[in-house]
């Protein structure tokens, strides 16, 4: 189960890393398509996938670090960027005192790539493009204090879900690591101490190992869930660029935890093997003592009847040769001996000792 989750995680990260750069440097949207649906608008803000966020006089809320594309349209046709003029003599930094956006040439004659500024103040695109009379207004929210991955926008349901999962991960990892420490200490004690553990204490230790493995399963499932969440957000048209992309760190943390749990389990299994081996030796030793004592008692007991019959025949033989000495003189006590042997074996079988020895 663990191996399957890890395999899925590795495959997932591989897919995510393969897709992530593609999204991060996504193709620019088609200005023709953007303007085609906005015949009456002059300026349109769109995502990398061409989804319109806002047009003239509209207001849109964006988080700082978000990358959008600005198209200038006239009569439903895109206008070349060469005809646009910037507010500050061609500088690439634009904005009011409160807001600063970075405009980057998107290698297009019809689009500008705009990285939304970091100061959380309202501004509009008029500040950026001086010759535009109508333009969308941006509500910029600062996300620099958010400890969120770049794929997540603060305040969204996904961000809350991620935060909850991250908190759960911290708890689950703490629980699992505590169990790892306990299991390792117990295993070391069993391996180093001469005293054999009791079945009751072993049962308690087994419960702890079981809880440790369950904690690992929960933590690894949490890692997979967080990566899935980020991956889904990565595919959304708008995401921030001012945060980390923690796919690798999530995976590394999960792998570290998995390795620690596996190592503790192996150490404990080694201790269990030692305890089982000691128990097997103890069983054989006890049975051997019983067999030795029983044999010492059984040999003279079994010899009594044949001896008496033999003695009788020996005494009688001196007078007559007519008395026979037949095999039944030993078969009768041998039958009793076989019954005792059978009962003894049955006790060994029923006690479970045979299963342990074999």
């Amino acid at each position, binding site marked *: 189960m663990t191996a399957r989750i890890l395999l899925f995680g590795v495959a997932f990260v591989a897919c995510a890393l393969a897709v992530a750069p593609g999204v991060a440097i996504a193709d620019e949207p088609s200005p023709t398509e953007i303007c085609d649906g906005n015949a009456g608008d002059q300026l349109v803000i769109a995502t990398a996938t061409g989804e319109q966020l806002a047009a003239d006089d509209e207001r849109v809320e964006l988080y700082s670090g978000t990358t959008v594309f600005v198209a200038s349209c006239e009569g439903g046709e895109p206008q070349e960027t060469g005809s646009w003029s910037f507010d500050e003599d061609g500088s690439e930094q634009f904005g009011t005192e409160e807001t600063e956006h970075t405009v980057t040439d998107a290698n297009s004659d019809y689009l500008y790539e705009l990285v939304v500024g970091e100061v959380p103040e309202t501004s509009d695109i008029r500040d950026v493009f001086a010759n535009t009379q109508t333009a969308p207004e941006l509500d910029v929210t600062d996300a620099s204090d958010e400890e969120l991955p770049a794929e997540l926008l603060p305040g969204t349901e996904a961000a809350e879900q991620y935060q909850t999962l991250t908190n759960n991960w911290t708890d689950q990892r703490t629980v699992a690591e505590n169990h790892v420490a306990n299991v390792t200490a117990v295993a070391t004690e069993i391996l180093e101490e001469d005293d054999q553990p009791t079945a009751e204490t072993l049962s308690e230790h087994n419960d702890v190992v079981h809880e440790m493995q369950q904690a690992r399963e929960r933590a690894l499932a949490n890692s997979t869930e967080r990566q899935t969440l980020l991956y889904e957000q990565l595919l959304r048209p708008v995401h921030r660029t001012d945060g980390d992309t923690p796919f690798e760190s999530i995976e590394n943390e999960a792998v570290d935890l998995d390795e620690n749990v596996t190592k503790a389990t192996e150490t404990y*299994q080694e201790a269990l093997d030692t305890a089982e081996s000691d128990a097997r030796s103890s069983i054989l030793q006890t049975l051997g003592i019983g067999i030795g004592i*029983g044999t010492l008692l059984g040999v003279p007991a079994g*010899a009594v009847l044949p001896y008496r019959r033999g003695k009788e025949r020996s005494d009688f033989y001196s007078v007559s040769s007519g008395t026979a000495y037949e095999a039944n003189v030993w078969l009768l*006590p041998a*039958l009793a001996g076989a019954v005792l042997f*059978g009962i003894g074996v049955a006790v060994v079988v029923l006690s479970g000792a045979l299963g342990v020895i074999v």
Partner: protein
Amino acid sequence: MSSDWTQHAFVAVVVAVVLTVMVGVTTAGAPSDVGQSAITAVETAENTTELLVAGALIGTGIGVVLGSFGMYWYWRRQF
């Protein structure tokens, strides 16, 4: 007549013992839970009295068979 009955009974007991051992070995599979086999082994080892009695019974049985046959064999050689 008596000798035949004793021989048949002896063979029957031996067969019963062999069958008991075979059933015991067959049903004594390894426990499926991790660590359960160690617990079973330790639990069994803790039943010292039961193991001693079982061993004593087995030993007595072996001893009785050996002692009776040995004495029988001794007298047979004497006659």
